[in-house]
């Protein structure tokens, strides 16, 4: 993985090949879990960073919306950072001595492949919708948390189409299945772009989560850590109050299933380039996001529940 360019965007084939290299390079720390298959039959991989034993885990996913290319690129950089920092960086070493990290880089493989082959602006999955010529489901409206509410669409042609039923998408079901089977996931960090926001439950109701105060305080610390590197400012708060009502989201589902530390990141920028963030911003974005991830992971390590 040393000759791989982390400052450019890669195809899914390149990323999967790079994963193979990472496994060879760090065989004692990194393993690949095949958690399922996409609608079009592509493998869905999660990387597990573990020093052994069955530890509580932190789940991180990038690329659930395929056109948000900065997120998959940040996922790749982050995987390398985790692998290369163990035994070198004392904070990360301490985290991995107490927790596993599970990272899914290409959470929507069909969509991501489609952005490279056919339509750079594709957001959804690529499943066929019965009775419609429109393709795909919004994989971040497909979770069983406020599913089907007004913060999503019942129109298959909409970019926020929630799907025929909760977890209809294999890309979503694979994660649900994995997390429930694991049974000891303590944090879910779902990475999106763009807007520079840090969001936490809920998106489907104005009710405050039972852990609202702690989630708010941690979001504040996380945003401060992120800003400390390049000055990038994030806003934070509940999804519904900060951005808009969103039903059926991953982090609401995670929270409702006992994963207290559930955050949605919206990475750079705030609207100069949007989804077409220049590749020269990949590394600065990944670097500052790393500080944010570390803040959450350290908190999870220090606050077992």
């Amino acid at each position, binding site marked *: 993985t040393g000759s*791989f*360019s982390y400052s450019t965007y890669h195809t899914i084939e390149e990323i999967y090949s790079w994963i193979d290299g990472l496994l060879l390079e760090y065989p004692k720390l990194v393993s690949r879990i095949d958690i399922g298959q996409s609608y079009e039959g592509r493998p869905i991989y999660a990387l597990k960073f573990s020093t052994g034993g069955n530890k509580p885990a932190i789940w991180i996913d990038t690329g659930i919306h395929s056109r948000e290319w900065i997120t998959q690129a940040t996922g790749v950089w982050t995987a390398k950072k985790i692998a290369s920092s163990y035994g070198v960086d004392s904070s990360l070493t301490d985290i991995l001595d107490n927790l596993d990290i599970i990272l899914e880089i290409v959470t929507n493989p069909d969509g991501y492949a489609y952005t490279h082959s056919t339509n750079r*602006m594709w957001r959804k999955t690529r499943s066929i919708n019965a009775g419609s010529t429109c393709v795909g489901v919004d994989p971040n409206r497909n979770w069983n948390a406020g599913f089907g509410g007004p913060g999503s669409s019942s129109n298959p042609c909409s970019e926020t189409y929630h799907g025929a039923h909760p977890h209809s998408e294999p890309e979503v079901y694979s994660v649900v299945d994995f997390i429930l089977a694991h049974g000891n996931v303590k944090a879910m960090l779902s990475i999106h772009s763009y807007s520079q926001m840090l969001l936490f439950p809920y998106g489907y109701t104005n009710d405050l989560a039972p852990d609202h105060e702690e989630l708010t305080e941690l979001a504040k610390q996380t945003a401060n850590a992120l800003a400390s590197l390049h000055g990038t400012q994030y806003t934070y708060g509940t999804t519904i109050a900060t951005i808009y009502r969103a039903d059926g989201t991953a982090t609401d589902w995670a929270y409702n299933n006992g994963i207290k530390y559930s955050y949605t990141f919206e990475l750079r920028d705030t*609207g100069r380039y949007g*989804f077409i963030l*220049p590749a020269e911003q990949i590394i600065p974005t990944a670097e500052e996001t790393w500080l944010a991830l570390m803040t959450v992971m350290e908190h999870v390590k220090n606050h077992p529940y």
Partner: protein
Amino acid sequence: QKTFVGDQVLRAHAKDNAQLDVLRELEAMKHLQVDFWRGPSRPNLPVDIRVPNAVLQQVKVFLESNSIDYSIMIEDVQELLDQEHQDIQSATLRER
């Protein structure tokens, strides 16, 4: 690859909930094939809309006739995508 020649991303600023509703109406006009990068949510948050070149004037007139302020966030989406593609090609060559 689908191309986006002449498509623009407009940043609309809704002053109030009534203007947000107008933007939601625009979102519902599927025949225009506008793509909301950031949907209408609350008055203080900008709404970013990728507008196909073919309906650009129509959408601008729609916004203006409803007194919704907007600016051009991306002048030509395809230009940015071409630059992105070129950067990827250069990086691939460097890697090799």
